[in-house]
Structures are given as C-alpha cells and as structure tokens.
C-alpha cells in the first residue's frame, strides 16, 4: 500500500506497541468522570450522615414509639405511623395502577402501534406530561379526584392522593419502559416470529424479559419519586396537622404521607422538632432503600437470565 514496507524488528515493534498514543482527552475525561462519581457519593454520605446525626436522639431513644405513634403536637410524643401508612398506600397505588398502565402503554406504543403521525404526537405529549410540574398534578388531583369524584374517593383521601401520584408518574413509567423496549434487538423479535409466535407471545416471552431490567429501573425511579413527592400531596389535601385516623387500609379517609409530614415537621420550631424531622427523613430513606433493594434483587435475577 501507500506505506513503505515495514522493517519489523523486535525493537521497532516493542517501541510501537508499548507506546501510548497521547490519549490526553481520554485520561482527563476519565478523571472528570471519576470526580463526577465522587461528588455524587459525597452528597449521599453528607445527606445520610447529617440526618442520622440530627435524628440520633429519636432514632436511638424512641424509634419504636416514633414509628408506631400518631402525630402529636408534643414533639416528644409525636410519631409518624400515619405518614408511613399513607406512603405505603400511595406506593401501592403507584405500583398497581401506574406500573401496569405505564408498561402497557409503552408496549402498545413500541410493539403494536403503527409509527404514524398520531403515535409520534402521542409520544411527544407523553414526554411533555413527564415535564408537568408536580404542583400542577396536585391541582388537577384536587379538582378531579378529591372534588369531582369525591363519592368514589371520599374527598381528600389517600385514594385521591394515590391516584394523583399514579397519574403523576405514569408518563415516567411509559417513557423509561418504552426506551427499554426499544433497546431490544430486532433479531430477537424475528427469532420469535420465525417459530410462529404471535406478537403477544413474542412480547411476553422475549421482549419484556429482555427489557425487564430497564423497565424495573424506570419503575423504581417512579415509585421512589412518588414516595418523595410532598407538594402535590399538600395541594390534594394531606393533613398537615393533628388528625385521628390514617390507619392502614382507610382508603377513603384523611391521610398523611411521609414527605408532607417531613415538610410539616420542618416548619415547626427547629430546636424541639429538628430531631423528629431528621428521624422521619431517615425512615423515609429506609423505605426507599428497601424498595430499591427489592428492585435490584429482581433486576439481577433477570439480568442473569439474559
């Protein structure tokens, strides 16, 4: 070719293949990336440490009480059982409404729907829905689920809140699931169709299992988001003060949830309530952690199977 014949002696070759082409971009990049990671980790550590520290008195002194008591205006007697119940109920709504609906819509869009102008329009709209501020969902939830449908939901109840948050995370579930489904190689679909499977069989047996880790990631992001939203709950009508009730299973009753409870605690005098605020944050983090761990276990189980 254009290049002169190589005189390949041991020395020449050794020099050549041991040389490192100036990969400055690569090296700089690598350290930039690493520091990005470290910053992120540092945030977690600071966050956890500061909260555990501030809440240590409550967490070590009266954790059982704190978790099982209702809210009281006395900081030393106040607990968060109502918030825990509400948060778990809301999570259940999200998991049982938003996840199936969202994954279903994503499957429909990616596997069934023709790629027409209409589906593109729908796709754009779903992306826009994901960007609607959560307060707006709160306003919507108040108008529709807490007021217009009060006969069903019982007013500003945990059911209204759960449905509102399910609607809030629905677009996120759809988008992340659709992304995961789109990443499934076509050759796998062809293999399935090739042995005479229906579209539904191909979807169920091959597309969904392959996309599952990605779908789980999106789902967990959504559930976690729902667990952490305070503003729409407050707008929908989470009780921010003392109330009786809020028991687990009271779907059509007054409710409280951990994030709004934390928000409320954070407005009470810091000196006496700071410990409760921090302890409630730690409990919420523990719940999020549990949800995540469950999802990661599931994810690993399915990734191994790939």
């Amino acid at each position, binding site marked *: 070719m254009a290049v002169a014949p190589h005189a390949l002696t041991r020395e020449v070759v050794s020099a050549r293949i041991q040389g490192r082409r100036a990969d400055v971009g690569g090296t700089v990049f690598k350290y930039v990336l690493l520091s990005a990671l470290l910053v992120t980790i540092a945030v977690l550590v600071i966050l956890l440490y500061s909260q555990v520290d501030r809440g240590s008195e409550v967490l070590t002194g009266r954790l059982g009480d704190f978790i099982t008591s209702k809210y*009281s*205006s*006395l900081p030393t007697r106040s607990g968060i059982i109502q918030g825990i119940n509400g948060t778990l109920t809301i999570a259940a709504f999200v998991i049982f409404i938003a996840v199936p609906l969202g994954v279903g819509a994503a499957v429909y869009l990616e596997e069934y729907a023709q790629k027409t102008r209409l589906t593109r329009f729908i796709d754009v709209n779903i992306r826009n829905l994901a960007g609607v501020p959560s307060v707006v969902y709160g306003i919507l939830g108040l108008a529709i689920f807490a007021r217009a449908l009060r006969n069903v939901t019982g007013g500003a109840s945990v059911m209204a809140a759960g449905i509102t948050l399910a609607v809030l995370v629905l677009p996120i579930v759809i988008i992340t699931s659709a992304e995961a489904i789109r990443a499934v190689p076509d050759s796998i679909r062809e293999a399935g169709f090739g042995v005479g499977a229906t579209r539904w069989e191909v979807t169920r047996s091959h597309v969904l299992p392959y996309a599952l880790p990605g779908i789980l990631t999106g789902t967990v992001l959504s559930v976690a988001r729902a667990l952490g939203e305070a503003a729409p709950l407050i707008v929908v009508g989470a*009780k*921010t*003060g*003392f*109330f*009786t*009730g809020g028991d687990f299973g009271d779907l059509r*009753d*007054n409710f409280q949830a951990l994030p709004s409870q934390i928000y409320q605690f*954070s*407005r*009470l*005098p*810091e*000196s*006496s309530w700071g410990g409760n605020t921090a302890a409630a944050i730690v409990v919420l983090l523990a719940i999020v952690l549990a949800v995540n761990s469950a999802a990661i276990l599931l994810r690993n189980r399915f990734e191994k199977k790939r």
Partner: protein
Amino acid sequence: GDDNDDAGGGGGGGGGNGDLSGTVAVSGSSTVEPISSAAAEAFAEENEGVDISVEGPGTGDGFEAFCAGETDISDASRPIDEEEVAACEKAGIEFIELKVGFDGIAVLTSPDNPLECLSFADLYALIGPESQGFEQWTDAQELATELGADTEFPDLPLELTGPGEESGTYDSFIEIALADIAEKRVEEGKIKEDQAETTRPDYNSSPNDNTIISNIEGSEGSLGWVGFSFAEAAGDSVKAVAVSEEPGGECVEASAETISDGSYPLSRSLYIYVNKAKAEENKALSAFVDFYLEGLTEFVEGGGYVALPEDQVSETTSAWEDKTVGTRES
C-alpha cells in the same frame, strides 16, 4: 355539657364520652394550631369514635375554608376581617367567636447587633411602606427622626425577614405596629391609600418560621418578626429587641407576663371561630369545644402561649354557652 354518664364507653381514662362519633375539622392559623392540636389530642384519646383533624395553613386560608363550609372551627391569630365576614355571610355561615389566649410578636435581630429597643416609629421607618429600597439601617434614620424617634440605627446592612401575606402574624404586625402611623401618613399625603395596610414589599418573606429565624441568626444587620413562641424556642441564637409604643416611651421586653398584662405593645389575641349551625347538629363538635374550653389554660400554656386571665376565660365560656354570633373585635 360534658356529661360523663356512660362509663361503659371505651377504656379511655378521665371524663370522655366514648360513644361520641362524627368528624371535627379544624384549620387556620399555624400559631393557634398547637393549642387546638393539644386539645384535639386529649379529646381524641377519650373519644375514639370521633374523627378529628387540625391544620395550620394560616389564618387567611383558614377563614377561606371556614366560610366555604369546609371546616368546623377556624383558628385565628387575629380577629376575622370585614371581607371574611362578608364571605361567611354570603355562604350563610354563622360563627361563634371565642378568644382563647394571647401571643406576642417578637422583633428579632442578631445577638451581635447592638440595638436594644425599637419604637413603633422605628419599625415603621424600617419596615413600613415608605422604607422600600432602604438597604442600610442608616437609610431609615431620616424617616425615623421625622416621625419623632431618637433611636440611633447601627451602620449595618439591613436584612429583613418576616412572614408572608398569608400569615396572621404578618397581618397582626401591620395592624398593631404600623397601621396607626400609616393612617397619619396617608392623611399627610405621604403615601397612597392602598399602601396603608402593607409593609415594604422588598423583604425576604417565608411561610416557614424556621427559615425566618435562621435568616436572622445568619447576619449581623438582620431584623425580623415572628410569633413569640417561636422566638422563645429559638433561644439565644437570636436576640429579641424590646419594644416601645411611642418614641422615648417605656421599652418592654416580650415575656409571658408582659404579654398577658398587656404591657408588651406587640401582643395580640388568639381566637377560635366555631360554625354555629354545625355545632348544633354535630354532637362531637360541641363536645370538643366544651372540652377545649374546659382545659383551655392548660392547652394554651402547653403550646407556649399566654393564657387568658380568669375574667376573660369566663367571658369566652359564656360566649360559647350563649352561642353568641358574630365578632366583637374590629
């Protein structure tokens, strides 16, 4: 009355009526919320059948819901105003006004600030509508002097933080400290009519008292106001300034005594408003109010506020027993 005849009802101790059922919704001032909460908690312990909730979004928000018929009791850190009365009337809601206690408004600054005492005129010069744009304490000196004050302001940047418009504390502060001077200034043509009931617009407002306190403790030239109980809870991290009504008048520090005997000029009364029609048809509601008033002193003091003197307690009790409709303040 708080009859205690049915001993079989529930295992709750004391004199509750375990058979009561129904719902009671309380909302309104976040200042009064701890008092109502304490009452509600004690009541709920004895009456498991009653669904009761207490919230504290703010006095104004509370009246809005109350006059829409959404709540049974509205907590207030100021008397109901004319607009709100009109709204209630329009909705056909009659209410019973019950005074439950006193709260002071503490004027706070940083412990590093040399200032010891401020008069209403000083406060007007620093916070009132004419102070818009003042960035240094000394910027207000001229106006304060014009209003007859002789306080010497420190040469520090002025950093103001206080509650926002939705708060009863904001309204009370204007009402008590600024309104009289502002009225005069309107007459003198220095400010416009619609500015009379406002503060300067350019200050840091927050609905969160902790944020206010932390802003105040953060800088030397800070100034702000919060409810007395919050100031007390904040301890030594901030300094409560003594207040005098007239320039050169007696400087009084906020304390339970000075607030209850009325000598601390920035003190206000706390109220609950009960929906009369609902109280008549809802046994749980009337029982709750009975219970509330019976333990009133305990609840008020437990919340960090100043209890009513004996005579006013009985005034309140009789207003409730007579179901006196309408407001006697304003």
